[in-house]
């Protein structure tokens, strides 16, 4: 007797990601039209222009404003329809995966049955009876399983039909007018005011609770009207923040590109456009990355403030949904970081995320790069050389950044779903000072803290000043000069957390090159592939404790002056081997020249006084 195999469900014709992309595009257009409508509504005939022509102009403005408002209403409904379609597709996707697993397993049973039948002894009555029993059992399951597959296929057809109907309902001018006049139409401006009040009150839990009460139409209207407000508000779910921020980003790119073509961009608009394009490029770099558990795109734009910090911009992006991940980490980079630094920092986060994911079993990971503070950068005359560090060695920007970072983390805690995630804050270089200020000056709700390449911890003199339970992990390369700035007698940015008396858990870091020209690279070595520091940080993110090494004590490490002179001489020695004209005297001369230049520079660099 031949058993029928179950036919798998059809392929999902539209992936949720595609619907989400379309919805983002609709909202972006909606935001542009909404802005134009508001501008038109507030514009009258110029003062002093009177008479019938002026009246006609006023009437025209009113007419255009009304037409634009109808378009906004229509786009709002279309975005709501696409968002609902997206939700339906996600459910269909999930159901399909379950069905495929079941169908696949069932058909394997049928294959095994067929093989056993073929190999069975026809004369063995007992074996034949057993096969008959298996046949009966399998046959009883075929119809039910195939029925569920057929039902899924029908549901997919119904979802397509529903979204087509919804979009067709707002595809004429008359339907747009009707949508605008709908008494149930959300009042986007009033909703924006209410959200702004809640954001200003600094209570992301209240924001989260209020957001949960909104209808989908209200959320979409708000995202079209004020995407920057929604996208950057702590407490709003990360998926919604991502949608709102992508809306802002696309709208900026569309509008500013047009102004760019016309040669009308101001300097600030140029910065805004550059930041928007960079964010889009970084997001596009992850368009082939899915969450392997849910199938959704794995990149979330959590902060998008392209105008912030006099054009440097503020941005935060996550790989993995921080609201649903079990282990979340947020990284604060240091000197010269600005919005356009996002891509490179995400590369480092991806490396960390993959390693942590391999260490934490079935738990999921989200890794965030947060650059929403005014890190010392080119605007301050910075290059990427720590020499500049001496010029900006104040804690002001770390203090301000610490407040912003604490707010960001608190917001994510409010939007967390399910059991509270294990959260690790990581700061590098000046970013470690910023994270330290977040912990000492604010409430920073994290479980673990990692400080790497730290020049100092602000006002914290001990690990327990940062984390009450002392869960502070420190990575400091022996030949990273920046980590020596917080040593005894120095400390313009605070205490070196790798000192033994600080009481942190110090993990092993490759010491780095001893050549003076490589010291800067040592400061940027902590995320190197296969490095001990990357492995240790992945341990912390995964909720484990890395191996510890002794903290620094006087005599156990090279101080800054010892490192500087020692590495300079070593580098000069290499020159001897590489060039016949170099002699010991030349080395001495070279060191003397450098010393002279240093003294010249020292006359105008007094940051450590």
């Amino acid at each position, binding site marked *: 007797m031949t058993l029928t195999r179950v036919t798998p469900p059809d392929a999902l014709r539209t992936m949720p990601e595609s619907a989400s992309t379309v919805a983002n595009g609709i909202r972006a257009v909606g935001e542009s039209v909404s802005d134009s409508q508001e501008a038109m509504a507030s514009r009258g005939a110029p003062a002093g222009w009177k008479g019938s022509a002026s009246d006609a102009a006023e009437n025209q403005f009113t007419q255009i404003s009304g037409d634009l408002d109808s378009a906004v209403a229509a786009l709002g409904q279309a975005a709501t329809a696409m968002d609902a379609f997206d939700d339906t597709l996600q459910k269909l996707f*999930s159901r399909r*995966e*379950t069905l*495929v*697993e079941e*169908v696949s*397993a069932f058909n394997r049973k049928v294959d095994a049955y067929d093989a056993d039948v073929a190999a069975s002894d026809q004369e063995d009555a007992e074996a034949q009876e057993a096969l008959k029993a298996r046949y009966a059992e399998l046959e009883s399951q075929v119809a039910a399983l195939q029925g569920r597959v057929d039902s899924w296929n029908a549901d997919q057809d119904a979802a397509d039909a529903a979204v087509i109907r919804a979009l067709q309902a707002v595809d004429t001018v008359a339907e747009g007018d009707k949508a605008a006049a709908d008494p149930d139409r959300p009042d986007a401006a009033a909703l924006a005011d209410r959200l702004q009040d809640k954001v200003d009150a600094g209570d992301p839990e209240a924001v989260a609770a209020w957001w949960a009460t909104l209808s989908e139409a209200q959320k979409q209207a708000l995202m079209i009207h004020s995407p920057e407000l929604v996208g950057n508000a702590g407490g709003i779910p990360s998926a919604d923040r991502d949608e709102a921020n992508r809306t802002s980003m696309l709208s900026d790119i569309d509008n500013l590109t047009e102004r760019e073509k016309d040669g009308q961009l101001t300097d600030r608009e140029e910065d805004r456009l550059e930041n928007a394009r960079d964010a889009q490029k970084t997001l*596009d*770099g992850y*368009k*082939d*990355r*899915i*969450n*392997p*558990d*849910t*199938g*959704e795109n794995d990149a979330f734009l959590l902060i998008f403030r392209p105008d912030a910090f006099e054009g440097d911009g503020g941005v935060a992006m996550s790989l993995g949904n921080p609201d649903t991940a079990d282990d979340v980490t947020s990284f604060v980079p240091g*000197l010269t970081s600005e919005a356009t*630094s996002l*891509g*490179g*920092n995400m*590369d480092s986060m991806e490396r960390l995320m*993959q390693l942590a994911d*391999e260490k934490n079993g079935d738990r999921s990971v989200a890794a965030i790069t947060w650059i929403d503070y005014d890190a010392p950068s080119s605007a301050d005359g910075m290059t*990427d*050389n720590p*020499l500049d560090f*001496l010029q900006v060695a104040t804690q002001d920007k770390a203090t301000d950044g610490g407040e912003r970072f604490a707010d960001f983390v608190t917001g994510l805690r409010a939007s967390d779903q399910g059991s509270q995630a294990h959260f690790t804050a990581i700061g*590098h270089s000046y970013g470690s000072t910023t994270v330290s200020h977040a912990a000492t000056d604010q409430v920073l709700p994290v479980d673990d803290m990692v400080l790497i390449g730290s020049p100092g911890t602000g006002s914290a003199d001990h690990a327990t000043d940062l984390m009450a339970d002392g869960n502070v992990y420190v990575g400091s390369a022996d030949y990273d*000069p920046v980590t020596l700035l917080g040593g005894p*007698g*120095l400390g313009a940015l605070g205490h070196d957390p790798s000192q033994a008396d600080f009481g942190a858990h110090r993990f092993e870091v490759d010491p780095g090159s001893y050549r*003076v*020209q*490589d010291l*800067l*690279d040592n*400061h*940027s*070595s*902590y995320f*190197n*592939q296969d490095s001990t520091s990357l492995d240790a940080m992945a341990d912390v993110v995964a909720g484990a404790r890395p191996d510890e090494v002794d903290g620094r004590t006087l005599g156990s490490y090279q101080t*800054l*002056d010892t490192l*500087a*002179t020692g590495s*300079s001489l070593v*580098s000069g020695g290499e020159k001897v081997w590489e060039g016949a004209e170099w002699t010991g005297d030349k080395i001495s001369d070279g060191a003397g020249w*450098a*010393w002279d*230049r*240093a003294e010249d520079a*020292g006359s105008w*660099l*007094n940051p*450590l006084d």
Partner: protein
Amino acid sequence: MGRMKVVVVVMMILSLSGCGGSDEPDARPDERAEVTRAAAAEVFPLIGKAVEALSYSSTGGGAWSICGMEPSPSGAEYVAEVAVTQTNVGSSQYPQLIESALTSAGWKVGTSSSELVKAAKDGLDLRARFGAGGINLSVTSGCLDLSKDTIRELTDKPRDDLGLSLP
């Protein structure tokens, strides 16, 4: 304190004169990128066929990413990737099917678990991370020692299209 300040500046000036990076780049990134793309274009469809893929996230993409960290990356690596978004076999079968496809194509499988398969071939690394939602596939070139200017030039390039045929 004065001497300390001067020493710091000595060090920094010398680091400036040394340009702070590798001395001489020894890799030819264009060739390495091409090798990586070619390997990905060969092995991704093999895995797709093994798991009866019905859709991919796209026709595949490739781009350079930094090694190390900002603001002074130590090198760059080329990453070619795509995601298999729908299949006709259950995800519980992925490890066995992926491992088998890789082995048949000459890849040496290093790690294989219920959610991850890692393999290597000709200096390239393949990573397949999967679950009920699909499969992330990537082939990476490994980090190349490059000058800072070259790293910026490569990472600024637009993403390459691997041109994979959709099932």
